């Protein structure tokens, strides 16, 4: 998910029909520059050197999204679409990319799911398997303190900046039904781990800043980011 205004110009993206390192390559109709989906960088074209600005998005289930955002709009869909085209692809741990890519980095299995982030030249991958056990991973990326939260109900992750009003918060998890709540050690405020909103306590009404991230298969992330850190 990216903003599509680059250097003051609004771009319209199309599917180039090309893959780079086994992932989607987009082109923009205005300049025909080729862009990678994984990191928003230019493969070639007039806008070489530019980078698309990522937007925080959440990959979750319809039921969880609807619960959190009852007033949500939904992209109109052909009701005959009742499943993914890629069932086999997602379920087979050996299948990587369309041309049969190899796992470029043995630190994790190729099809391991990771929550991925990038800040300038620093890249971070957090193992979803580990998140499923702990629901929360606290770390930093380029000096930015982060909370990575996992929701079992939506099989979804969120990433938040842990700084609020100049203070860096440290969290522990509180489960309440399908809600994953965070309590900060500094003020004991209770936050939604799914929306980042403070619900009870001294900082009630405040909101943690959502940080752009993706949920990726390891082999694809590692191909684009050979020097990525892996946690935990």
């Amino acid at each position, binding site marked *: 998910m990216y903003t599509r205004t680059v250097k003051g110009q609004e771009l319209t993206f199309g*599917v180039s029909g090309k893959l780079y390192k086994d992932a989607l390559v987009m082109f923009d109709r205005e300049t025909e520059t080729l862009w990678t989906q994984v990191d928003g960088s230019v493969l070639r074209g007039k806008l070489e050197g530019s980078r698309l600005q990522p937007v925080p998005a959440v990959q979750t289930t319809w039921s969880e999204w609807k619960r959190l955002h009852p007033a949500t709009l939904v992209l109109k869909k052909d009701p005959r679409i009742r499943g993914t085209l890629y069932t086999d692809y997602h379920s087979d741990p050996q299948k990587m990319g369309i041309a049969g890519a190899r796992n470029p980095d043995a630190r994790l299995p190729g099809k391991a799911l990771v929550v991925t982030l990038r800040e300038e030249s620093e890249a971070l991958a957090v193992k979803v398997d580990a998140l499923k056990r702990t629901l929360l991973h606290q770390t930093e990326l380029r000096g930015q303190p982060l909370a990575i939260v996992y929701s079992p109900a939506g099989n979804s992750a969120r990433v938040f900046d842990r700084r609020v009003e100049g203070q860096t918060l440290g969290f522990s998890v509180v489960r309440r039904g399908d809600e994953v709540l965070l309590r900060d050690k500094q003020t004991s405020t209770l936050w939604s781990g799914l929306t980042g909103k403070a619900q009870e306590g001294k900082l009630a009404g405040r909101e943690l800043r959502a940080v752009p991230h993706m949920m990726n298969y390891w082999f694809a992330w590692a191909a684009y980011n050979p020097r990525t850190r892996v946690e935990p």
Partner: protein
Amino acid sequence: MHEVAEMKKRRKGSWATAGLAALMVLVLPAAGQRPEPKMEKVGDGVLLHVLPPDRIPAINQPEFVSAAVADKFMAGDEPVLGLFDGKVAKAYSLWQLDQHEIVNDRLPGLGAVTVTW
């Protein structure tokens, strides 16, 4: 270059396996007529020319419905990408994005955005 040669070798018989492969089965002619995709070394990776531009159609004029209407065509466990700009929330079914990959959209608080899958 070694990588490209390896890729060529492995590609045999592995078309309908993964990623965009399912789509290619839908949009390409019969198996025997599939064109050999062009491979190109770019930087430290391989750029694979699989389909002509726009063969997979991006959505440029997205239409939206309410959650109540969407419930008629969305399954509870259907995966979605969700965007929230502080006021407006939008959800995009990944089962639908399988067939489009890109939505060019706009949210009041975020401006022009591209939703990609």
